[in-house]
C-alpha cells in the first residue's frame, strides 16, 4: 500500500512539473505579445510594427500638455524617463489624466507622432490621504532639484 501511495505521489508531482515547464515555455515564447504596451524607447529603437494599431505607455511629461481651445484636441509628450514620444488625441481624457501620471494610449505612429484613438490612465499602487499628499508636495516644492518625472 505504501508503494502505491508513493507512485501516486510521483504522478501528482510529475503532472505539476510537466504543466509548469510547458507553461514557462509557452509564456516565454509569448512574452512580447503578453505585454500590454510598448515603451517610448522601443518606439525609438524601431521595435514597433509600422502602420499597425499598437499601445504605448509611459508618463506624461510635466508642462507638455497642449489643449486646443476650440475643440477636444490635445497633445502631450510621453516618456519612460529615457525617450520621449509626442501623442495627439482627439477625445475626452479620463479623470486621472494629469501631468506626471502614467497612461496607456492606443493608436498608430504617423510621421513620428503617435495618433491615439483611446487614452487610458494607469493607476499606481499608492493609496494616500489627500492631506498627506499635500504635505509631500509641499516638501517636494522646497527641494526643486528633484526629478521632474
Amino acid at each position, binding site marked *: 500500500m505504501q508503494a502505491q*501511495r508513493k507512485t*501516486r505521489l510521483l504522478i*501528482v508531482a510529475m503532472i505539476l512539473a510537466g504543466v509548469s515547464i510547458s507553461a514557462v515555455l509557452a509564456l516565454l515564447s509569448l512574452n512580447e505579445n503578453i505585454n*500590454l504596451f510598448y515603451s517610448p524607447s522601443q518606439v525609438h529603437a524601431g521595435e514597433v510594427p509600422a502602420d499597425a494599431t499598437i499601445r504605448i505607455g509611459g508618463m506624461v511629461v510635466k508642462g507638455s500638455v497642449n489643449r486646443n481651445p476650440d475643440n477636444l484636441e490635445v497633445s502631450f509628450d510621453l516618456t519612460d524617463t529615457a525617450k520621449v514620444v509626442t501623442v495627439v488625441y482627439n477625445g475626452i*481624457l479620463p479623470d486621472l489624466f494629469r501631468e506626471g501620471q502614467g497612461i496607456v494610449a492606443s493608436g498608430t505612429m504617423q510621421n513620428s507622432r503617435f495618433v491615439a484613438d483611446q487614452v487610458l490612465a*494607469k493607476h499606481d*499602487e499608492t493609496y494616500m490621504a*489627500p492631506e498627506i*499628499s499635500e504635505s509631500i508636495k509641499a516638501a517636494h516644492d522646497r527641494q526643486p532639484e528633484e526629478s521632474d518625472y
Partner: protein
Amino acid sequence: MTSHYTGSKNHTPTPGQTRSFRIWFHRFGSSSYFYHMASRWGPRAGWLALILMVTGVYMGLFVAPPDYQMGDSYRIIFIHVPSAWMSLSVYVLMAVSSAIGLIWKMKVSFCVSRACAPIGAAFTFCALVTGSLWGKPTWGTYWIWDARLTSELVLLFLYVGYMALDKAIPDRNTASRATAVLALVGLVNIPIIHYSVEWWNTLHQGSTVFRMDGPSIDARMLVPLLITTVAMNLYFVSVLFNRVRCELLDLERRTQWVRKIVNG
C-alpha cells in the same frame, strides 16, 4: 498502518501510531469526525465573519480618508482586493485537497475540493465585476485584455470548467479523480495571476500590500482592508463547512452515523 479511514471508527491511536500529525490527519479523514467538527465551527465562523464584515465596511466607508487621486471611488478596494485574494487561496486549497485525495484516496478531501469550486468561482466573479466597475472611472474602460485581467478571467473559467466536468461524469469516484487532475493542472495559473503585474507591463497596478518595502497604503485604509480580508476568510470557512457537510451526508447516506442524524 491502515490506509482507509472512513466511516465512524473510534479515534484512539494505536501505540505505534502516536505521532500527533498522523492522528490529526486521520481524524480529518474520517467523515463523521469532519461532519461534527464542521457543524460546530461553521456557524461560529459565519457569525464572526458577519460582525467583522460590518465593522470593516463601516470603517472603510466612513473612517478611512479618501484617496489623494481617486477620491472616494477607491473604496471598492475593501471588497475587490479581499475577493481577489480569496479567489487565489481558495483555488490553492482546492488543488491541495485534490492532491491529498489522489494520493491518500481520502474521500473527505475530495469533498472539500468539490465544495471549494463554486465558492471560489463566486469570489473570482466578484473580483472581476468590482474591478471592472472601478476601472471605468479610474482607467477609462471597463475591460482591457492585459495579463492580470485575462489570467483572472482564466481562473473563473477553470472554476466553471471544474464544476462542469464534475457534473458531466456520473460516477463519483471517476469524477473526483478527473476533477482533481484538472485542479492540479490549473494550479499553474495561480503564480501567473500573482506575478502578472511584475513580469509584463499591464494596465492593472502592482501589488500594494505584498511589497518588498512594505505596504504603500495609508494605515487608516489598510486596517479596514485587513478586517474585511479576515471576514471573507471566515465567511469562506463557514460556507465551505456547510457545503462539505452536504457532500458528506450524500456520500455516506447508507452508513450508520448518517442514519442516526437523519432519524434524529
